[in-house]
C-alpha cells in the first residue's frame, strides 16, 4: 500500500495507455453493443427508421429462429470435436518433435507455418483441395475412384462439411498448440524419466504417468484457447463452406454448416438486422463465458491433484 502510494502518479501514468485502450476498444463498444441489442437499430437510412428501445424483443425473436438454434447445436458439436482433434494431434506432434527425431526443428517449423496463413486464404485453398484436387486423385488412382464421384465431395453434405471444417481448423491450429505442449514437455525434469526407466516403465507408462500429469498446466491453457477459438470460428467457415450445403431444421430450409459467428454476421449484415445480430452476440458471449469458466475450473482441479 505504501509503495503504491509513493509511486502513485507514475503508476497511473504508465497504466493510462493500456487502461484507455482497453476502455475504448473493449469496454465501451461492449456496452454500446449491449445497449443496441435492446433496440431495433438496423443502420440504414430507411424512412421512419430510428432506434427505438424494444427491450428483450430481439432476444426473444432470436431464440425462436431455427437458424440460430441450429447454429448453436452445430457449433457445440463442432467445438467438442475440434478441441479433441486439435489437442490430440498437437500432443502427438509435440511428443514426436521432442523425441530424438532427426531434423526435429525443421518439423516444428513446418507444423507451425499453417498457423501463419490467414483463415480466409486457407479456406479457399482447402476448398480447391476438396472440390478439385481430391476428385482428381480419385480419377487418377484406381482404388480411390469413389473419391472422384460428385456425390462423395466432402463439401456437398453437412456431416462431411463439418468434418472438412475440423480438418482445416486442425491443420491450421494444431501447430500453434503443439508449440505450447513442446514448451511444457521440455520443462519436465529428465530425472523422472530416468527413474521410471530404471524401474522398467514402458514408453506408454512413462507418457501416461509422467508426461501427462506434468503438463497438466499446459492443458488448461490449450483447452481454453482451442475452445474459444473453435467457438468463434468465422473466417474458415466463411471461405470454405459459406454455410452450405443447406438442410432442413424445424421445418425450414437453412444453411447446414453455418456456425454461430457466421449466423450473427448474416443476421446483422445480410439479414439487415443489426440489433438482432447484437442480441445474438450477447447471448453468444454469455454462453462462451459459461463454457470457458467450466472448462478452466475442471482443468484447474486436474492440476491440483498433482
Amino acid at each position, binding site marked *: 500500500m505504501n509503495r503504491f502510494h509513493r509511486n*502513485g*502518479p507514475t503508476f*497511473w*501514468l504508465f497504466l*493510462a*495507455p493500456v487502461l*484507455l*485502450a482497453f476502455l*475504448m476498444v473493449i469496454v465501451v463498444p461492449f456496452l454500446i453493443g449491449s445497449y443496441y441489442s435492446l433496440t431495433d437499430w*438496423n*443502420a*440504414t*437510412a*430507411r*424512412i421512419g427508421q430510428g432506434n427505438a428501445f424494444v427491450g428483450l424483443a430481439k432476444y426473444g425473436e432470436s431464440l425462436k429462429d431455427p*437458424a440460430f438454434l441450429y447454429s448453436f447445436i452445430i457449433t457445440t458439436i463442432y467445438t467438442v470435436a475440434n478441441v479433441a482433434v486439435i489437442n490430440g494431434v498437437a500432443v502427438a506432434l509435440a511428443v514426436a518433435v521432442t523425441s530424438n527425431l532427426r531434423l526435429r526443428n525443421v518439423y516444428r517449423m513446418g507444423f507451425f507455418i499453417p498457423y501463419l496463413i490467414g483463415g480466409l486464404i486457407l479456406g479457399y485453398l482447402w*476448398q480447391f483441395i*476438396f*472440390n*478439385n484436387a481430391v*476428385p482428381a486423385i480419385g480419377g487418377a488412382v484406381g482404388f480411390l475412384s469413389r473419391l472422384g464421384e*460428385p*456425390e462423395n*465431395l466432402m*463439401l*456437398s*453434405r453437412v456431416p462431411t462439411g463439418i468434418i472438412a471444417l475440423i480438418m482445416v481448423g486442425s491443420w491450421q491450429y494444431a501447430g500453434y498448440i503443439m508449440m505450447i505442449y513442446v514448451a511444457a514437455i521440455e520443462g519436465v525434469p529428465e530425472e523422472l524419466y530416468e527413474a521410471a526407466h530404471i524401474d522398467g516403465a514402458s514408453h506408454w507408462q512413462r507418457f501416461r504417468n509422467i508426461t501427462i500429469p506434468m503438463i497438466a498446466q499446459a492443458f488448461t491453457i490449450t483447452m481454453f484457447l482451442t475452445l474459444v477459438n473453435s467457438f468463434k470460428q468465422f473466417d474458415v467457415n*466463411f*471461405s470454405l*463452406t*459459406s*454455410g*452450405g*450445403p*443447406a*438442410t*432442413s431444421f424445424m421445418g425450414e*430450409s*437453412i*444453411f447446414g454448416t453455418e456456425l454461430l459467428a457466421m449466423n450473427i454476421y*448474416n443476421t446483422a*449484415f*445480410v*439479414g*439487415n*438486422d*443489426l440489433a438482432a445480430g447484437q442480441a445474438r452476440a450477447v447471448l453468444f458471449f454469455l454462453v462462451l463465458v459459461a463454457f470457458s469458466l467450466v472448462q478452466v475450473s475442471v482443468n484447474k482441479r486436474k492440476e491440483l491433484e498433482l
Partner: protein
Amino acid sequence: MKKAVIIALALLIVGGALFAGGAGESGAGTVTLVQNKPEIDAMLQDYGAAWSEETGIDVTIKSVGGSSGTSMGQQLRADFAADEMPDIFVIAGIEDYREWESLILDLSGEPWVEETSVAFTLDGSVYGFPVAVEGWGMAYNADILEAAGVDPATLTNLEAYRRAFEQIDSMKEELGLSSVVSMAASADMGWVTAHHNFNSLLSNGLPYGDQSVVNELLAGQVDQQRLREYADWVELLFTYADPGILTTGNYDAQVGAFATGQAAFLHQGNWVDPNMDAANAGFEMGFAPHGSMNSDTDGIFVSAPSFYVINSESENIEAAKQFLNDMVFTAAGQRFMVDEAGMIPAYANVERNPKGQLSRSVQSWAAEGKVYSWNQYNFSGEFRDQTLAPIYNQFATGRISKDQFIQSMTAAFESLRG
C-alpha cells in the same frame, strides 16, 4: 490534486494520439464512389485518375462484392454506422432505394436523364444513374448446338429445352462434354439460383414492367400452376448439370466449364464476356430464352442492373454530378464505359458497341424488343439469400424432392404476408 492533473494529462496525450486519425478527410473537391463491380475496378480507377487530372477534383473509388465477400449493402451499412457514407454509391432497385431513401438525391434535372430510358425512376422523379444495360438468358455454345442438330431459335419453352437437353446429353461423348448445362447452386452461388433463376418465376412471359406476379407473391398468393412449371424448369437445369459444379462449384468452376467447351449451356449473363476473353473461348455464342414455362417465352431478361445514386448529405454534390455527366458526355467517359469496362451503354448518345459476343447478343435481343424485366429486387436481400437460397441448394443436392421444393417455396411466399 497533482495526481489528478497527471492522470488528466496522460489521458489527453493518449486520447490525442487515438483520435488524430478522425479528421482531415472532407476537403472540398473530392468524390468518393463505392461500386459493386470488382471486374471493372482497374478500368474505373484509371478513368477516375484521368478525370481527376482533367478536373482537379480528387476521386476515391472503392470496389466491393464478387461471388464471395462483402456485398455492397454490407459495406454501406458499415460506412453509414461509421458516418463515412460515400458521395456516390450503388443501388440495385426498389428494396435498396427504400433502405437509403432519406439519403438519396433527386437527379431529375440532370442532362443525362434525357439520354436514357432505364434510369431509376419513382413517382416521376429520377434518382438513379444506370451504370449499364445487362442481360441474361441461357448462354449457348453455337458450335456444339450445331453439331448436335439443335437450333437455338426453337428454344423457347420447357418442352423444347427438354428435347434439346436429352439430345445433347445422348451425344456427350462425341461432343466432348462433361455436362449439358453449367449451373451452380452452392451456398455462395445463391445469386445464380435465388436471384437470377428466381426471376424466371417472376417475369418470364410477362410484358416488360409487369409486376402482377411479384405483387401476388409478396401478398402470399402463389399461382401453383406457374410455380409447378417453374419447378420443372429448375429440375431440368439441375438434372443436366455437372453435379460437382452444381453442389460445390464457385463462379470460376461454373463459367470455366462453359468457356472450355465442357458444357453446351451456361446459366449466367453477359458479364461473363471478360471471362470468355481471358479463357480464349474461340466458339460462337449467344443467348437463348429461359424455358421456364410450357408456353413460348421468346425473350431474355434485360435491365439496368444497378444505378449510381448521389448522397444528398454529401458536401461534394456538384463534383459528384459532374463525374456522372462526364461519363456520358465526354469521349473519355464513353470509351471507359464501352471499350474498357465492356459494358453495354444505357445512353442513346453513345454510339460505341461492346466487343463481347454475349453483350452483343443482349443488344440485339433488346433492339428487337424481346425483353423481360428483372423483378427479383422487389424481394429483400434477406429473403433471397437466407430463405430462398437454402431451398434451391437442398433441391440441387437432392435432399428434397420437386414436390417438397414447391411446398417450401410456397411456404416461403406465404410467410411474406406478415
